[in-house]
């Protein structure tokens, strides 16, 4: 058991309206408190926006601007530039968005901000689907997963956003998981100290969206990391890869078996997913070894 080691300034308040047991709220708490008080956030429509609170309540102590779904990174850029114009270069500008708002409709704005190397910290809460609208697929939804718009299972793979972002050569791209909160806090800390566009993709096992038991989100996230489905790693300047967990200790099936969205899988499909994960793991090792 690992002790969670971060400074809680209570910037994230109780009483938010995430589903009971949702690890996005937990991640938000760690991230906001690690970033600290000198921060402004913009949030696009997503579970994250719901978690931030509905008028007249707010779950956050930092100011939050609710933007539109396609505009997260552009909205964050505007806040950052305004703060610069006011002589406040050290205030962290956070962009909180879901995977739909990042991999899909918001990708154009994110790519443009990354190309300009805007000084923002972009957090993508990746629950692998459009959960706010009841659970349809996004381009982050993995192969074979059932969603409201892929009732027979998605026929294409999850988009590799990290490689797309790496091609922008931004200072930091990292993955994080609510099962590894110290690692998450360390990555936020590191990102905060860097200037330019930083993106952290946080895996959020979604209780209703993935068909995960109310008390199993952390466990599912841990299995995602330990099976190599969602490796914890960092990419600096688009080329320097560091793997934060160097061993895989679980089979992919142990991860898939936690989730209703994969209940229909045949043994061959599980094998195919395992083979995909193996190949990606090898590629990451190769990248981390400096090629």
């Amino acid at each position, binding site marked *: 058991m690992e002790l969670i080691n971060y400074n809680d300034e209570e910037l994230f308040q109780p009483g938010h309206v995430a589903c009971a047991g949702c690890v996005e709220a937990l991640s938000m708490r760690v991230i906001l408190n690690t970033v600290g008080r000198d921060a402004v956030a913009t949030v696009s*429509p997503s579970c994250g*926006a719901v978690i931030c609170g509905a*008028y007249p309540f707010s779950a956050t102590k930092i100011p939050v601007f*609710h933007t*539109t*779904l*396609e505009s997260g990174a552009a909205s964050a850029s505007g806040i950052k530039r305004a703060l610069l114009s006011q002589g406040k270069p050290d205030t962290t500008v956070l962009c909180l968005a879901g995977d739909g708002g990042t*991999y*899909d*409709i918001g*990708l154009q704005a994110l790519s443009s901000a990354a190309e300009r190397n805007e000084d923002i910290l972009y957090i993508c809460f990746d629950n692998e689907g*459009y959960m*706010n*609208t*009841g659970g*349809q*697929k996004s*381009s982050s939804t993995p192969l074979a997963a059932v969603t*409201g*718009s892929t*009732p*027979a299972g998605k026929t294409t793979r999850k988009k590799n956003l990290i490689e797309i972002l790496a091609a922008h050569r931004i200072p930091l791209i990292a993955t994080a998981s609510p099962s590894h909160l110290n690692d998450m806090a360390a990555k936020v800390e590191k990102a905060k100290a860097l200037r330019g566009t930083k993106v952290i993709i946080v895996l959020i096992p979604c209780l209703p969206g993935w068909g995960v038991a109310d008390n199993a989100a952390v466990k599912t996230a841990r299995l995602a990391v330990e099976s190599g489905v969602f490796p914890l790693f960092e990419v600096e300047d688009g080329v320097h890869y560091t793997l934060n967990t160097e061993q895989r200790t679980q089979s992919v099936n142990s991860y898939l078996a936690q989730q209703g969205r994969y209940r229909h899988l045949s043994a061959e499909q599980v094998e195919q997913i395992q083979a995909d994960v193996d190949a990606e793991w090898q590629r990451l090792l190769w990248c981390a070894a400096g090629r």
Partner: protein
Amino acid sequence: MEAKNYPSNRLLLSGNHAVAWGVKLVCPDVAPVYPITPQTPILEKITEFQSQGELDMELLTPESEHSAMAACISASATGARVFTATSSQGLLLMHELLHYACGARAPIVMFNVNRTPASPWGFWPDQLDSLAQRDTGWIQLYSETPQESLDTVIQAYRIAEAVGLPTMISHDAFYVSHSMEPVEVPSQDLVREFLPRFEPRYRLDTELGQSFGAPIDQATWNRSRRDIAAAMALVADAVTAAGEAWGELTSRAYGPLEQYRMEEAEVVIVTMGSMSGTAREAVDAMRERGEAVGLLKVRLFRPLPAEALRQALAGVSCALVLDRNYSPGMGGILHQEIKSALFAMSGAPRLHGLLAGIGGVNVSAEKIQQLVDDCREVEPSVEAQWVE
């Protein structure tokens, strides 16, 4: 008129599922869609029909509504019959392409669920999203009930294809989209008779070699708008013809306007969408008390059936426009439109504009009766008034 002998199926459906059933019966070739509350039940139901093999249709789920509409236009230009559905932010994000669809003369049918636009965020019934698209060149129809939504989706293809213009149908969030009622679902044979296959004259076709949308000079651009104007001039008749033909097959006829208990009416309530249902109740209650009150429901909003509106309101002493939308700076959009339709009409009714139910706040039948009573006393003003 007696309906022809086609069996129909009575199902308990929400407004959105009624739309999905309409789509299933039409069986469009291509449907690019992007999810948004409260449209998602349409998307999920047509996806379910398609995945179960009951709806043979190319379904695309692009990254945004902007791309969904772009794909609608190009698929339509390739000769496909196209469907999409959206709401609020999604419709607003499509705005650029809505103009484009009209200019490209793409007879797309789109269903919009009327919802408040951000900021601030809300999910409530309000017609501003679609009314704000009034200058994009889309035919606009408003539906009051799940049955009307199903019937109108099917008729919309006939209208759009007859005149070569894209067509948008809207119903109110939740009041219609999520409320259930028994709906007559017509048979596939009936719909096949009503809606033959679409054979566009111009299309992207390797045999024909025609191209679309290249830059043109001023005079040709000007002519393209006149062509659109000529097509718009045909719409009211096309809506009437489609509504009557539908009535012959189903006993449910429709037109651009619906006049409810308008005989000898002194005061007429003019409105659109789900508010018409509440207004109907108010009219019944007032007629019961011997008051000469009627309802004029606007079903076709674009093109505005100005001549029919003038005829319907001739001899009426007072008309009350209820707008569930607010155009900052000039009040209710339907009010503005009716004012312009009645321009220079001799003996036009005293026209009151009321901003009622903006943001989805409830407007009861009792409230409407009170508004009717109040308007008899006061002089109308050029700007619409907020209803408390």
